């Protein structure tokens, strides 16, 4: 048996659209098989068929040489296939241990259906220890950060004793340090003969850990090759169908005057005495580990939460921001970390989302000028290259990259001078990422000031003019572009308690 899993000649259509066209995927036991492609290439549909969420129109699935039919996700799990989703599948009101064992809780007595809570906690504790995850098994999910929730998701998939684990963007919300832990665990799984299908847009990761790479484009299989036989550029060319000479297009910038000065801003224990200056036309990157307080800093500046100390000066004048409304009036924009929760109204359409922060400017006497609104929406759909059937399409139908562009459009319409971006390219395909980088460059050129919070080191180094590093709520270092290096950033980002920042 050369291959553990074979998905042969899979074809799947939805009304009017062929999503997968004769795609074949072969995965060996104990290998890490990367599945790559732009958003819309068909990766998630293929995985959903594997998980039993969809049924293929044509084609077959074989496990260990025998054909199988997968009825539903439960059936898939029963056959040893499990998936770690990009959109976290956690139950917020339960604690970590309960989430890990959900649906297969260890039982004290089969008859009475009593859950053996001690065993559950014990097992969870064991896994956490092995993986060096410092989370309390009893911690309610709600209290965990996005990154911590992801780690719990990882443990869930690992503990279900699966033979194939599909990992969908597993490191999108965790830092390099935590990713290393994951990769170590993946190594261990490989040795046990577990096959891993790894979906990610982070190229350096892909090349670091995968054995084989399969590329899909527009629903078709483009190639399947051993990772060692591919280069960066070749891979991108396969994915996108054209040369992309630079992943991070960066132009020379000439930052102008100081537009904002943040002085000794504090917010309880989350943000401690942060000060910095921001110039028009510059891109200021903020790097750091998860929990460093970067998002919290952004939220405080934007007025989402009240500050407990310090002041903000705009063009030299002190301003008082108590609510996002005030920030918007001062021409500040915040693209938040979690677009689904705080960036988009998923019950509304593209146009309604784009106009949301600038409604009063599109209205006369409180009545919305529908024509103006439509025109504005269409302008941004064109300018940002948002792929959508129309401005009236429900925004929840768009892919992640296009959704993010809608969020950007909303803020651009509000005509900000300062734009704060918190993880703007998380979970987005290469093509859209590049669009966003180009956009950032363009905005900086127009004289806007940009703050870019990112956990992806290559990204923050590729786009920023200067980087602030934060650790445990404080700014621990400032690095200018010519001194950029991953080691330097990591050093500042992981200053131990008690150590003095440079």
């Amino acid at each position, binding site marked *: 048996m050369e291959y553990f899993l074979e998905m042969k000649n899979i074809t799947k259509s939805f009304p009017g659209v062929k999503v997968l066209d004769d795609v074949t995927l072969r995965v060996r036991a104990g290998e890490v098989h990367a599945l790559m492609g732009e958003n819309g290439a068909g990766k998630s549909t293929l995985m959903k068929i594997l998980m039993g969420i969809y049924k293929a129109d044509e084609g077959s699935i074989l496990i260990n040489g025998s054909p199988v039919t997968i009825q539903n996700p439960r059936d898939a799990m029963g056959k040893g296939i499990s998936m770690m989703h990009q959109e976290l599948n956690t139950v917020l009101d339960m604690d970590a241990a309960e989430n890990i064992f959900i649906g297969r809780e260890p039982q004290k007595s089969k008859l009475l259906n009593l859950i053996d809570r001690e065993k559950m906690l014990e097992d969870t504790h064991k896994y956490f220890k092995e993986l060096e995850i410092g989370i309390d098994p009893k911690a309610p999910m709600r209290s965990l950060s996005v990154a911590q929730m992801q780690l719990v998701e990882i443990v869930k998939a690992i503990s279900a004793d699966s033979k194939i684990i599909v990992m969908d963007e597993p490191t999108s919300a965790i830092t390099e340090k935590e990713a290393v832990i994951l990769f170590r665990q993946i190594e261990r799984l490989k040795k046990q003969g577990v096959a891993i299908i790894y979906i990610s847009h982070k190229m350096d990761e892909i090349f670091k850990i995968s054995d084989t790479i399969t590329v899909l484009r527009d629903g078709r299989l483009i190639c399947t090759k051993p990772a060692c036989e591919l280069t960066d550029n070749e891979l991108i060319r396969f994915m996108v169908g054209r040369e992309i000479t630079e992943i991070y297009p960066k132009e020379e910038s000439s930052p102008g005057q100081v537009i904002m000065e943040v002085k000794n801003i504090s917010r309880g224990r989350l943000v401690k005495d942060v000060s910095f200056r921001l110039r028009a036309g510059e891109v200021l990157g903020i790097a750091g580990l998860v929990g460093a307080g970067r998002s919290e800093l952004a939220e405080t500046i934007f007025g989402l939460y009240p500050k407990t100390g310090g002041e903000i000066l705009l063009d030299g004048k002190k301003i008082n921001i108590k609510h996002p*409304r005030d920030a918007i009036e001062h021409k500040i924009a915040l693209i938040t970390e979690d677009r689904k929760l705080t960036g988009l109204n998923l*019950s*509304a359409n593209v146009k309604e989302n784009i*106009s949301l922060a600038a409604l009063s400017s599109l*209205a006369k006497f*409180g009545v919305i000028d529908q024509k103006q609104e439509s025109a504005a929406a269409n302008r941004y759909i064109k300018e940002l290259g948002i792929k959508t059937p129309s401005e009236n399409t429900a925004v*929840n139908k768009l892919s992640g990259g296009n959704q993010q562009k809608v969020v950007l459009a909303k803020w651009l319409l*509000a005509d900000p001078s300062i734009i704060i971006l918190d993880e703007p390219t998380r979970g987005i395909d290469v093509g859209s990422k590049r669009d966003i980088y180009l956009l950032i460059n363009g905005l900086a050129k127009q004289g806007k000031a940009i703050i870019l919070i990112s956990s992806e080191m290559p990204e923050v180094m590729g786009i920023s003019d200067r980087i602030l590093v934060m650790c445990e709520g404080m700014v621990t270092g400032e690095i200018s572009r010519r001194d950029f290096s991953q080691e330097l950033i990591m050093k500042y980002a992981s200053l131990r308690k008690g150590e003095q920042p440079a």
Partner: protein
Amino acid sequence: MINKNGKRIINYREFGIFIAFFALVIILMIISPNAFARPRNLINILKQASINGILSCGMMFVIISGGIDLSAGSTIALSGVVAAYCAQVQGLPVIVPVLAAIAVGAIVGAVNGFGVAYAGLPPFIITLATMTAIRGLALIVSGGSPVYGLTKEFEELTNTFISGFPVLAVYFIIIVLISGFILTKTVFGRRIYAIGGSELTAKVSGINVKRMKLLVYTICGSLAGIAGLLVASRTVQGSPTAGDGYEMDAIAAVVIGGISMSGGYGKWYGTIVGALLLAVISNGLDILGVSSNYQKIIKGVIIAAAVYTDLRGKAKQE
């Protein structure tokens, strides 16, 4: 309504209710051509749908914003009693009881709104409390029995016709059109949908969520005040026990009309169909001699069906 390929597809979530409504009307017309289908009866249905319809408009605002108001029925009683006291005074212009009723409703609504927006209480809880308290207040203020002996002008508020249409229906149509306009065409309305769709996103986008919620509940209370006024005029008495359970019919009309209970979704004209549908059911079943207990069962089934359709439509969209 236009899918990926640009083809028009029927959105069951939005139009299912219209289909159900017309089907029901046609069935009843066939079963009872001499009674149900008579013009005077159809006008009666319009009249009977109006009070619930007006209440439903207020409820619609609240539900779209992601909340609920259980106190609307009690507000009907209190505002009706207060209006009736004013209407007992001969010679007092009829505008006085009208304004009094609206004011009472607005105050109750503001109390609810304050509780939800500024004290952070779940709407279900605070409006449950006001529902009980305001009912008690109505009994106290009225001394336990209906306030009667009201002026003719007050009775005329609901007893006249405008070019063949009962004036109650005219009030309903005006209020529902204004509500629809606010919800679809104004910044205020758009913000209500935004809050219901994603409160956090609305806040981040600069919307003053607290103030909006206070306004929304005040609007609902004011419309309940108007409904109370109309009930008092229609029965020519201010009864402290009036409106008992009316908030349920209003919620039913809104839900049947396709407004999602989770907020942020739904078309205003659905509420018209919801209110008419409920009135048609009562009217048709009364004429056929079916006891009101069976009517309750049937209403319950329809509400469940409406919520089910809403949830399935929602799941399909995701």
